[in-house]
């Protein structure tokens, strides 16, 4: 249905209701790119393939799938399986499981409730039964982990790792020491030994750096090819793939290499450069993919992202210290000001026309950050759109689409005004 609807109305978002439908549709949209199709397949098959691998005897652990976790888990010989990715398979009934069976308040973040519903469905099915909870993750996840521990999952949650603004010098060194100990504790829970193979971790740190460099190359090439890779696959590649490689590091790297070659060989379309309204996305990956479609169809080009990892890991350091310092140096170190700095740098680098601030309904933490960022950029004359979306459902509301379209229309008219 989706593609037909798209052709018929051709300038307004699709009426697709599930995330998987959107990904399938996105494959047809990117029919000209084998690399993007491969990336979408990696996205779609990430969780199911990891669960199959686990059943076939390969170690796998549910994890947030961000920051330091995947690098460490790969070095320990374990597939990191991002539990936030389960939202892609979630519907209203998963939320109801969390609300009805586990008594989660209705207003709890939909991402957390979806995860609980999905874990509940997997009870006693012989699938992955260990959960690594990084306390850097959203706080309500602590409740989800505790509930799942009671249901029989093997859950480990480490202490929060947080670098407050302006923390440097001896205080930072003490944090580095603290986090290093924390990661050794994680290793002990994963393998039974309080040690991490230096060479394997070094290889994983190098892989991380290598993939970040390649991903940055993709982002740079998108500046001159703003519509080649549309919003949905790029945002999933950034927020999921760059962090955990969809459970398949070699395939992910090969797809990135192929994409770089495709982009390098693609002629630059001057018309695209003229019509692209450059935007920076400052939000998570909601499952309401129609928002991304609306941005694309309105002529918006999401070229900048809040999660762009600025800094690479220092490969000259011992591997564990390198991973720890990488964590503290990037935007996910904790305080909202780090992320704001990334957004600002992206706005300046791209000469972006506006910023879309996106968060999930029920996420009180992100709503505070968004409001601070909105005010900051507003005072600097950078238009911002503050959107709240849902994590678990497919189609966005008409009001959300109206906001997105109106925002892009406003930026387009501003651009015309300025000539």
């Amino acid at each position, binding site marked *: 249905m989706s593609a037909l609807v798209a052709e018929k109305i051709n300038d307004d978002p699709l009426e697709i209701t599930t995330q998987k439908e959107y990904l399938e549709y996105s494959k047809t949209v990117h029919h000209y790119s084998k690399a993007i199709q491969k990336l979408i397949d990696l996205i779609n098959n990430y969780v199911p393939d990891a669960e199959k691998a686990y059943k076939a005897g390969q170690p796998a652990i549910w994890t947030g799938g961000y920051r330091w976790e995947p690098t460490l888990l790969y070095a320990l010989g374990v597939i990191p399986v991002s539990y936030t990715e389960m939202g892609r398979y979630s519907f209203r009934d998963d939320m109801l499981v969390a609300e009805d069976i586990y008594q989660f308040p209705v207003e709890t973040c939909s991402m957390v409730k979806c995860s609980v519903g999905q874990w509940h469905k997997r009870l006693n099915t012989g699938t992955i039964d260990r959960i690594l909870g990084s306390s850097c993750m959203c706080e309500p996840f602590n409740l989800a982990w505790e509930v799942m521990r009671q249901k029989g999952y093997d859950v480990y949650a480490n202490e929060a790792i947080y670098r407050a603004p302006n923390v440097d010098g001896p205080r930072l060194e003490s944090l580095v020491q603290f986090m290093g100990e924390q990661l050794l504790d994680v290793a002990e829970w994963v393998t039974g030994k309080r040690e991490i193979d230096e060479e394997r971790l070094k290889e994983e740190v190098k892989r991380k750096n290598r993939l970040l460099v390649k991903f940055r190359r993709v982002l740079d090439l998108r500046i001159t090819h703003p519509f080649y890779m549309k919003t949905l696959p790029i945002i999933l590649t950034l927020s999921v793939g760059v962090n955990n490689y969809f459970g398949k590091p070699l395939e992910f790297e090969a797809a990135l290499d192929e994409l770089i070659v495709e982009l390098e060989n693609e002629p630059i379309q001057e018309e695209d450069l003229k019509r692209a309204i450059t935007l920076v996305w400052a939000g998570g990956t909601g499952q309401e993919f129609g928002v991304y479609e609306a941005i694309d169809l309105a002529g918006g080009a999401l070229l900048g992202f809040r999660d762009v990892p600025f800094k690479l890991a220092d490969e000259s350091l011992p591997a564990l210290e390198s991973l720890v310092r990488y964590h503290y140096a990037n935007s996910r170190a904790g305080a909202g000001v780090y992320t704001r700095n990334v957004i600002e740098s992206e706005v300046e680098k791209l000469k972006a026309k506006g910023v879309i601030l996106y968060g999930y309904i029920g996420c009180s933490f992100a709503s505070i950050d968004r409001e601070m960022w909105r005010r900051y950029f507003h005072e600097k004359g950078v238009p911002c759109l503050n959107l709240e979306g849902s994590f678990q459902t497919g189609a966005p509301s008409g009001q959300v689409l*109206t906001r997105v379209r109106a925002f892009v229309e406003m930026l387009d008219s501003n651009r015309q005004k300025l000539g």
Partner: protein
Amino acid sequence: MSVKIETALDPRRVAEVTNDVVVGFDIGSRTGKAVLLKDGLIFSAIAPTAVFTQQTVDKLLSILEEDAKIKLSDIDFAIGTGYGRVAFDLKDTRKKIVTEITCHAMGAYYLNSDIQSIVDIGGQDAKAIRVDPRNGHVVDFIMNDKCAAGTGRFLEKVAELLGLTTEELGVEALKATEPSDISSQCVVFAESEVISLSAKSEPPTNIAAGIHFANARRIKNLFNRIGLVPEIMFSGGVAHNVGMKKAVEQVLGHKFIEVNYDAIFTGALGAAILAQQTLISSKLDMAINI
């Protein structure tokens, strides 16, 4: 129904209107509106929103065709806006979709180019829009659609509770001696409050006024985010509600500017103007490419 362009529009904008025959459709959640520009005249049509957008569009078209003595094939370009903008068919007539926020700003600019702020309260949401007085472009906007409170649907519900029509609700509010204090921001709890006030024999006039002031405070909150700059226009379906108009004026501390055309058609008018501007741009592009 038709009026001359020079009667309805800002005199500074009249010369910019071309001879292209264009239509703007504004399909809202409660009513559909359409404006046709032809031969120096503005034709308008209004109809309740049907279950399917196409039914509403067909109804509006039939009214316009009869009034303006045109056929669909006579229309050079059409723009659809409002929540029903997505799904409608005009056969071979060229069309485009634009959000109601952009259309309201452009409509307001053509009605009075001094307008810099718009209060737009429709059936299912309320919007505050800032307009560039140099060109009618949107400077900033904010929408309140978290719940039904502060919308036309909310007022309908309250009118029903008080045994009034929505038109009567506004008129009754003007007779209030002491507006009731309605504290709830939620339509469900506000409904309980209205029932509770009625049970205490609070006069319906005071309750009606209290409801309007509660809504007006929400509008003020929207402008706190984007800034309020006079002149201010009240558009959207609720613009006809005299009680709401008074309450918002009082809370904002500014009078609404009067325009010479029914403000409920602001979005449809803006869509029609944008249709003409689209044709001008495409002709320019063609000329450049020749």
